[in-house]
């Protein structure tokens, strides 16, 4: 009983998030048309992609059954690290950039080793790492933010976040990086051997191991990937916002995980979808942007964010039910 294409589309787990996104756009746009203005769209997108990069990596990691709370502090730390090395004239920017990525990879590797070899739950490992990394950023800088003036005339800076205005919409290079990353991760998860191993590791690690899948290896790799992406995002963000503050990135971990989960990836692993994550990213970020735009009082901000998340999940759940009746 092969299913028709239409049926397959409807049955896709991404349907829920998609409907939510469209609904959201409609509502905000109707309240304040500015919401769809070129200017606003480009604004909304810029920061979106920076968190998005992390969310993509987190999707793979969560599909393999682990998650990483330390991304937020790696985000802040790496920017500080790179700029310190660069500003103090220790090395040219691109070297500093590579060194920073190297450090991030090491952090991820450490997370992975502790989780897989020591069998410590990833919650504790990455929570501990969060504190260590954040602390290091604070201690080394003594809390002073790094200035990032000299960035503009750097080819690397241009390559990472250079912007171009296309039909009135200001687009940053980072958009491009995000799209590429999204395509790549989607390909890996759905088309490759490794993708199959990732899902198996999350779905039933014993079974995977019994088949000779290097579960530990896969997870370590993904931890490294998520750290690296966090660092990459942190650097991009610091160049764009022209600020490298040891505190930046605080609390991003929860937001990123929320994006991934809203997208339909399961917290406990085994099932993951990049398309869903992309939708989840847009849903959450546009919501934040829209709320400011329609002028919700600052202190009520959280009420709306939270309320909408809950409402959306109920709706999402309703849609799911409609289409998988019985099961």
């Amino acid at each position, binding site marked *: 009983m092969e299913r028709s294409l239409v049926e397959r589309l409807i049955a896709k787990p991404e349907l829920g998030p998609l409907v939510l996104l469209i609904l959201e756009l409609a509502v905000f746009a109707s309240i304040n048309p500015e919401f769809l203005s070129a200017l606003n769209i480009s604004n909304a997108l810029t*920061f979106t992609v920076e968190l998005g990069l992390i969310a993509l990596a987190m999707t793979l990691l969560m599909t393999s059954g682990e998650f990483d709370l330390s991304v937020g502090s790696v985000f802040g730390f790496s920017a500080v690290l790179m700029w310190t090395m660069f500003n103090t004239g220790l090395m040219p920017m691109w070297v500093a950039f590579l060194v920073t990525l190297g450090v991030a990879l090491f952090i991820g590797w450490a997370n992975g080793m502790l989780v897989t070899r020591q069998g410590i739950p990833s919650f504790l490992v990455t929570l501990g790492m969060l504190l260590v990394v954040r602390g290091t950023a*604070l201690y080394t800088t003594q809390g002073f*933010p790094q*200035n990032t003036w000299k960035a503009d005339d750097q080819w690397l800076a241009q390559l990472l976040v250079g912007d171009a205005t296309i039909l009135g919409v200001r687009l940053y290079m980072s958009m491009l990086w995000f799209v590429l990353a999204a395509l790549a991760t989607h390909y890996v998860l759905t088309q490759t051997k490794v993708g199959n191993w990732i899902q198996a590791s999350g779905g039933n690690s014993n079974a995977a191991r019994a088949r000779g899948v290097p579960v530990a290896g896969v997870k370590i790799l993904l931890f490294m990937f998520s750290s690296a992406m966090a660092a990459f995002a942190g650097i991009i*963000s610091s160049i764009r916002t*022209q*600020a490298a503050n*040891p*505190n930046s990135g605080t609390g991003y971990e929860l937001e990123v995980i929320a994006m991934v989960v809203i997208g339909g990836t399961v917290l406990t692993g085994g099932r993951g979808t990049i398309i869903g994550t992309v939708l989840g990213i847009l849903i959450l970020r546009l919501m934040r*942007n829209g709320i400011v735009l329609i002028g919700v009082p600052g202190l009520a901000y959280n009420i709306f964010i939270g309320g909408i998340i809950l409402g959306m999940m109920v709706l999402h759940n309703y849609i799911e039910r409609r289409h998988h009746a019985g099961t």
Partner: protein
Amino acid sequence: QAAGKTYYWISHGGPADPVWTYFLAGANLWASDTGNTVNTSFHSGDVPSHQEAMRAAIAAKPAGIVSTSPDPGSLVKVVEEARAAGIPIINFNTPDPSAKFQAYVGANLESVGRGWAKFLADNKLVKDGDFVWMPVEVPGATYGVQEEAGAATILKPMNVTWEVTDATLDQAEVINRMADYLTANRTKIKAIIGLGDLVTGSIKRVFDQVGIKPGEIPVVGWGNSNDTTQEVLNGYVNAAQWQDPQATSYIALSLAAMAAGGIPPGFDIITGALYQKDTAAIYDKILSGK
């Protein structure tokens, strides 16, 4: 008042940092006085989301924007965009000379820090070789950094040493950590500079818990919260800095409105005063009057 225009009031503060509640109150008061709409938002020191809010505001084409500066240099581009869009934009609470704001309203944090150190020095509360403790809610946030820098200009020459510690924004945690630190270094600490309102406001509770008598260790710091004025009145805190939070917001918005009306403000307005027991009553009235 359908006639009212829309203004954006954007802050890097934490929504429940006591002092910010007074800044907010000032903004709301201005709104009701003038019949304009003021959209407010807090960003707890998160630069990207602060910028995002600014841009969202610019997109909404308001009559004016007033904003704090989360980090030196972090708003240069955004401010340019606002100017380009012909939207009046005023800086308040935390100055950023590098960005082309039309005007600044608020305290000069470096001089505030210098003021505290000077007070300690002038009143012979610290001498050569002493150690000063500087608790702060969010290490690395602009306000603490600039105040520390300011204080340094006085303390360094006297070769007084100091340490900044992380107290967090959580009342219970603040008390807990400060109590711990005090217990550990009670003998070493010759004076305390509270770099933020929450920490300064917690001095009484900490002293009580550790069993230190009011005045035993001299304290200076921020005085924009009810707690602190009480502490000044009861002798826990020797001198506290008032920065006219409501006034700051009110004037900043007024300047924005003025600029919107076509009168460009070409000047900064520096607010604030260091008060002691004798004058504390005034501020107590303002604050408890909510």
